[in-house]
């Protein structure tokens, strides 16, 4: 191995180590459980207070106070459900029937979301043959 190549190897190792460190610390600070409604309920107390991304379908019956911006709704995985409260700007893609991801914490009964995502319709596919 030539001297230049050795220097390169050292530089590359340093670079990769720095990247790995950044990735590790970044991951630690932003990790959250990514759960469905059923999984969250099954885990119960273990995830109370932890940061969670909860994925579920928005059920009909959305209570939205447009003036205060307070939104209350229920997400479901088809069999079980969890009530969610959220305060902030509601994305246009949010509506009953939409697939939503909420980020926040669960206190054992209600999920308090600090961020709300609803799936962009371009990624939606109508059920096969269904109209």
């Amino acid at each position, binding site marked *: 191995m030539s001297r230049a190549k050795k220097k390169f190897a050292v*530089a590359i190792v340093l670079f990769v180590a720095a990247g790995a460190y950044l990735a590790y610390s970044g991951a630690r600070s932003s990790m959250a459980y990514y759960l469905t409604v059923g999984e969250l309920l099954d885990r119960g107390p273990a995830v109370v207070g932890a940061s969670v991304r909860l994925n579920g379908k928005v059920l009909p019956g959305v209570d939205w106070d447009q*003036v205060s911006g307070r939104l209350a709704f229920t997400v479901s995985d088809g069999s079980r459900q969890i009530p969610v409260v959220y305060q902030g700007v509601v994305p246009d893609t949010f509506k009953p029937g939409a697939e939503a991801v909420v980020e926040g914490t669960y206190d054992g009964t209600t999920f308090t979301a600090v961020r709300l995502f609803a799936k962009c319709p371009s990624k939606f596919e109508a059920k096969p043959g269904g109209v």
Partner: protein
Amino acid sequence: MSELGNLTIALAVLVSAYGLVAALLGAGLRRAELAASSRNAVYALFLLLSVASGLLLYQALTRDFGNAYIASYSSRDLGFWYTVSVWWAGQAGSLLFWAWLLAGFGTLAVWRQAHYRELMPYVIATVMGTSAFFTLLLAAVSNPFARLPFVPPDGQGLNPLLQNPGMFFHPPTQYLGYVGFTLPFAFAIAAMATKRLDDEWIRATRRWTLVSWFFLSLGILFGMQWAYVELGWGGYWAWDPVENASLLPWLTGTAFLHSVMIQEKRDMLKVWNLVLIILTFGLAIFGTFLTRSGVLSSVHSFALSSMGPLFFAFIALTLIVAFTLLALRLPWLQSAGDLDSLVSRESSFLFNNLILVGAAFSVFLGTIFPMISEAVRGVKISVGAPFFNQVNVPIGLALLLVMGLCPLLAWRKASLANLSRNFLFPAALGLLTAIVLIVAGMSHPVAVTAFALSAFVTATILLDFHRGAMVRRGHGEPYPLALGQLVLRNRRRYGGYIVHLGMVLLFAGMAGSAFSSKQEAVLRPGQTVGINQYTLRYEGISRYPTRSAMVTAATLTVMNGGDPIAVLNPQRNIHRGHEEQPMTEVAIRSTMLEDLYVILAGVGADGTANFKVIVNPLMMWMWVGGVLLSLGAIVAFWPDRREALRARARYLVGAEG
């Protein structure tokens, strides 16, 4: 009509399969008539898919709602152009669009690049193999011509979110970029299959790579712009899996188009280049697949989408074939050149590659993190925007630094004299920028670094332009002419530098986002909300119907120190047929310095309104940077007659020798 559509799709599958076999047999058995037949198969495929696309558009425009796809994505009140966009609005249609583009590109290659006689059969085989997969999906899984058992009186309509001019810019350019990378990949496969592993395949695909990169960049930028004006959360990038998926091939593709220059100049990195283009193609397919299935935004839908396993099988098969071929060819891929010094232009390219691939790896890792953690620890854990930012902001800054250093360094080994001659002025300017910003009170270290590096890179690039022009002026050309001629006669180099200037502006715009400020307010008419130097007075609400929607618009007067400077009208509109989904139309006042972005988040019955106001500094710089980047790419790939002649001469010499 639909029967004819089904027939063309079925024939397209057969023609793809035939073309694949004929091309391989023609090359293997050295049968010229089979090779010719495979070329005709590409033309036939393009014709068939054009007919299929034409039929689909005809059905859309004649409102044939018996077609399930047309019924799902259009309605009678949809205007002409949005009806045309139905072609790529849904899954089946966009797969057809993909396959049609591929056949079109294949046709171009067969027609314009016939002189690569040895490579062409394998190029055709790769294109046809890919096309066989996509047409098979169209025929068996996601058929754009599937009929409903009855004909509904009207369709479900196109989602109002998609009824935006962005629909004509973002998806087509994105797809052109994704599909385009098939051609460099196909030439790479051909080079490996034929053992013609010098830089022939790279020269043959230089323009394909640049054009694909150009469209992919445009696709991403248009997507960012669309998200910014339409999705109404005040940003342009959320590290959503589908956004990430479009960034991945862009990152590896950018690495590829830099590292091929090293192979051309120094005959190095041959294996690396092949690896990069294989990965880029794989990621482009991955991106197409993610966009269309939404697999990652709900990790549970694997089983729901029957396409998922098929796409994974295709990607796996492609990677296995390509990397096996590469492994078999390793003995032929010895590098002739060698690295001489850590401080040289080729090493700066190497670091550029390392950085871009590192970024791609981290984005890929973050995107599929839930799947990994589930496999390893049995629980799905996802990482959010902080992860991506924390990793990619330093990576971006490092990239900016390398971008500035690269043109300053000599090939092989940069001497100290060379460094100080080139380095002093740009480095001083960068340092000065940092000092001025800190003295002016900017305390955000990342942003200060980004702006200082931007100044540094800009200076190195302009210095290079200036030196080149001065040399030409020494030969008697006036300065402006010299500058123009310099760019025109070295399109690739100076086009590249213009792209870099565009990137610098993009980076500066992103750094500006660090200083965005937000304000939320519930106002009754007459009340005001302040943000930075602006005061916004809410005047009232008006409701009126338009052709397709019921509009609720708020009127706000924007004042800057007491003087009214603008009137903004953020809206919430209810589109007919989509009553459950109000459409937020943000109001934006853009200047070169900053954007004032107002969202009407909600309206009460008594006219009380809930606003979110955001000030985004330097947003305009991003879009200007995007335009500059596109112009630079066009300069770089625009056909150059002299270059074509040189290539022709080289080719003839090669053929004789």
